[in-house]
């Protein structure tokens, strides 16, 4: 790809790139992958995938997005659309492995034994690791991938009430453990 072509693509909005991709322009789609690839991979890692699994799932999600790009109408952001595809794919993989159900049934909330910060507060990645796996998964699907509780329940094939409980417990733990940019969610909550 020439420098001028690259420059032209980088100057376009996501929706314009998606329109080009819908007409078969793979370079335009490549620009979308360049812009949002890291965010999708980071989300998958936060949900609980290993780095390798996250890369595989993110690749599958982008390929799947390219194949169904005509369905993207620009109503939400392209990133959130791909994140939802990736998160659902992760949930399906978990279900297929039957690991999730076993772990949820056996899940005992883990206590935080360490912290990256001497004050006892940590960043999002560390805080998520301190949650039980089901809590981490449900919180990440709802707040990271933007799925509703109902959508998350469907993706995980779990009762809605179970998902809500996991989210609630996960949120309660995160509130006390997160320290975003030196601030805490409790602090934000207080100021809100």
């Amino acid at each position, binding site marked *: 790809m020439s420098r001028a072509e690259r420059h032209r693509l980088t100057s376009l909005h996501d929706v314009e790139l998606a329109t080009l991709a819908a007409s078969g322009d*793979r370079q335009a789609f490549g620009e979308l992958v360049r812009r949002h690839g*890291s965010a999708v991979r980071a989300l998958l890692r*936060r949900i609980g995938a290993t780095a390798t699994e996250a890369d595989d799932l993110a690749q599958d999600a982008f390929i799947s997005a390219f194949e169904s790009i005509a369905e993207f109408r620009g109503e939400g952001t392209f990133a959130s659309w791909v994140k939802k595809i990736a998160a659902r794919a992760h949930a399906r993989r978990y279900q297929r492995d039957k690991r999730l159900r076993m772990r949820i049934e056996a899940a005992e909330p883990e206590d935080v034994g360490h912290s990256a910060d001497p004050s006892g507060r940590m960043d999002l990645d560390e805080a998520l690791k301190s949650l039980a796996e089901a809590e981490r998964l449900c919180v990440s699907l709802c707040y990271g991938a933007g799925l509703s509780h109902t959508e998350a329940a469907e993706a995980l094939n779990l009762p809605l009430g179970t998902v809500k409980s996991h989210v609630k417990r996960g949120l309660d733990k995160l509130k006390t453990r997160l320290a975003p940019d030196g601030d805490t969610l409790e602090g934000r909550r207080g100021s809100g």
Partner: protein
Amino acid sequence: MAVAELEVERALERMFARATELPDADAFVNRVQRRLDRGWAARRILIGGAGVVGGVIGASQLIMSNLFSRAEAASSESARVLTSSVRQIAPQADWLFNGPAGIEAIWLAAGLAVVAMGLVLTRIIEEI
């Protein structure tokens, strides 16, 4: 839901949305593009292969059914009927049949039309 609770949720969404670029971001893009290119190439090969197989089957059927000799006979008969019909309807169209190429020109045009339709069909399949 309390306003404070919503604030907490929004803060969490913002934190999730904040993701730094991973060091191997370019390599990831290349991997996705390679997979897209492979898929594209595979689709072209599949379409081309299907076209070749279809052509071979079609050609063999034509040869097996002795179509050409029958078409030749039918062609002579239809050309005669066509000529007389057109002469009845439009006597001034004589130039078409009495020209240097005559009836062959019509068959040539029909053949070109079939080829053009084939190209259009191929293009449509590629688009799909």
